[in-house]
């Protein structure tokens, strides 16, 4: 047959294979057991599609430090969104989490489904579906607040949630739930309070406060909310950054016609449009610069291909206007004026990264109000400070240094307290690393510390097998507190450094 002709017989076979794939076209407030809540929430994801990622990312960084306990955040721990301003209070002692989010920020859009907080230590996996079968470990004393985003436009914006009347959970005896909705100009969220028959009144009161504290904010995030950061790892470009929560990470190259140097990171406090006419020269994304408002910040990093470190000034210990423009010459570094960009302060900062030996141009632009706002101003420079780069070329894997056997003491409450035995390692260097038979989430000892996979609490059926199985891969520190384990099958898992000893029991 002519290859241009459609092969309807094959087409029919393919259709039979996928005909059974049905997806809910609207989010249902309660989904029957076994149905695909995730799919229903796809609808929800579209408008508020990126709403929760940083919240979970932020939560992940917090959770990673203390396995799900956000009490360290105090009474005002907050989930925050990187793209659409959205926040949810997290009471001290409550646990927070979110549905799966797989992929880096470039894949962030689709990957968040629900977020939740709960009063118990129960480990919840994936999407928490109100009205579905309770997950293992959830007790009748538990209270769970679930937040789902969904499409909603042109509606009123009740900034204080009003919960509807209680309804019976037909799946779980004695459990009930209430819900309410609130909308902002970026979308809506449905908030559920779901609890067991033995939930205490104080917990229920707290849950109501949490639900009523969910905010879809019209304006930009408060600097206090911006403070948390979201880890960003770009494997293709060998780049790690801590992006302020609430800021927008470009998921496309804003300067697609620029080949050398090549843009590898662009972040702003506003939606970033690709391309545009050159603002001043071809290095700058014209649309992004044109959209930069008085209270906005834009940061981009470009890499010069094949550059030698000696071609660039040394990377400053800490990026700041004063570090770049010595001797009170900061005004002269308000480059925007010279560029003809009225009302914008901007800096081109070339630097060589000593770890990777790569050469970069970073560009920071701020509107006048942002420049005068200490929190936003500082966040831009902290972003540059957080940058960590891989060395180019194939990594050389060394064995992980080790020092003797583990010291341990038996704990009265069970288990053994152990101290790290690994020797020091260097940032940016790949080390061969063998994960024991209990997996990466059990004991990961590297550079004199134990390390914890991010979202360790969320290990579930779909977790990478390296978390629970032996594996031989490589491990590399990106900075003093973060590392990446790359498995033999190229699964990559982020790790956070733990301080001091840990208590371990038997592994499953």
């Amino acid at each position, binding site marked *: 047959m002519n290859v241009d002709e459609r092969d*309807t017989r*094959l087409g029919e076979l*393919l259709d039979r294979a996928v005909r*059974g*794939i049905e997806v809910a076209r609207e989010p249902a407030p309660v989904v029957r057991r076994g149905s695909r809540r995730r799919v229903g929430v796809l609808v929800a994801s579209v408008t508020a*599609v990126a709403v929760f990622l940083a919240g979970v990312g932020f939560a992940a960084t917090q959770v990673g430090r203390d396995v799900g306990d956000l009490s360290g955040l105090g009474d005002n721990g907050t989930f925050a969104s990187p793209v659409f301003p959205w926040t949810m209070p997290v009471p001290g002692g409550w646990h927070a989490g979110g549905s799966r989010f797989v992929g880096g920020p470039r894949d962030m859009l689709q990957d968040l489904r629900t977020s939740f907080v709960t009063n118990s230590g129960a480990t919840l996996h994936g999407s928490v579906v109100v009205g579905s079968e309770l997950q293992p470990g959830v007790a009748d004393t538990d209270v769970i607040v679930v937040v789902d985003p969904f499409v909603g436009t042109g509606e009123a914006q009740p900034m204080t949630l009003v919960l509807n009347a209680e309804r019976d959970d037909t799946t779980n005896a004695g459990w009930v739930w209430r819900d309410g909705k609130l909308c902002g100009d970026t979308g809506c969220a449905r908030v559920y309070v779901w609890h067991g028959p033995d939930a205490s009144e104080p917990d229920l009161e707290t849950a109501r406060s949490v639900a009523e504290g969910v905010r879809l904010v019209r304006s930009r995030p408060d600097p206090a909310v911006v403070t948390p950061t979201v880890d960003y790892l770009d494997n293709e470009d060998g780049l790690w950054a801590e992006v302020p929560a609430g800021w927008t990470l470009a998921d496309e190259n804003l300067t697609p016609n620029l080949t050398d140097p090549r843009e590898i990171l662009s972040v702003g406090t506003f939606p970033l449009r690709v391309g545009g006419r050159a603002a001043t020269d071809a290095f700058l994304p014209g649309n992004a610069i044109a959209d930069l408002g008085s209270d906005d910040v834009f940061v981009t990093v470009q890499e010069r291909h094949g550059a030698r470190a000696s071609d660039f000034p040394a990377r400053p210990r800490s990026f700041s206007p004063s570090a770049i423009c010595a001797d009170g010459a900061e005004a002269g570094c308000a480059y925007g004026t010279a560029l003809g960009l009225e009302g914008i302060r901007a800096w081109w900062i070339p630097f060589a990264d000593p770890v990777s030996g790569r050469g970069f141009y970073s560009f920071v632009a701020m509107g006048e109000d942002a420049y005068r706002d200490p929190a936003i101003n500082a966040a831009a420079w902290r972003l540059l400070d957080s940058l960590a780069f891989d060395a180019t070329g194939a990594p050389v894997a060394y064995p992980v240094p080790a020092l003797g056997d583990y010291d341990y003491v038996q704990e009265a409450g069970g288990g053994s307290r152990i101290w790290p035995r690994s020797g020091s390692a260097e940032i940016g260097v790949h080390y061969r690393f063998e994960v024991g038979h209990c997996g990466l989430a059990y004991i990961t000892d590297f550079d004199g510390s134990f390390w914890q996979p991010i979202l360790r609490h969320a*290990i579930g059926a*779909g977790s990478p097998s390296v*978390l629970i199985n032996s594996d031989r891969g490589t491990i590399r520190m990106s900075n003093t507190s973060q590392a990446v384990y790359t498995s033999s099958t190229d699964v990559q898992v*982020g790790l956070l450094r733990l301080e001091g000893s840990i208590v371990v029991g038997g592994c499953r």
Partner: protein
Amino acid sequence: MVADRAGFEGFYREHLTRVVRACALVTLDPAAAEDVAAEAFARLWSHWGQIHDEDHAGGYVFKTAMRLCAKRRTKASREVIGGVVDRPVADEFGRSDDRAAVFAALGGLSVRQRQAVALRDWAGYPTDEVASMLGMRESTVRVHLSRGREALRRSLSVEERDR
């Protein structure tokens, strides 16, 4: 015209399943297909104001989905920092013998071949539109189609359609 944002939801409802199914034929993973479709629609949403009509929107979302499918396959099973994970592995849509056999056969094709076959033979797009969606020349699409069909027919014991 679908420039009003309210119209997006209707478009979404109408086309979501089709996009998910197309993606499933490429990713061979319905759950990943949902993800890809969701992101494709999300990106469509961000450009909704610049969309002229439903054909334009349909082309955009399919093109985006196919690009993301390829990316997803390239990075299959790779999890990134901050993203550990809890992907259900079971196909909760329910399996069928048809699907198992066809997916197994599709698994023997390259991503490009699967894309070409899915868009041409399943979705029914003309070859030139498939080329546009996949960002390749028509001649290249024809090569992928030819090889993909041949491999599928061989695996599924399907005779070539009468000339």
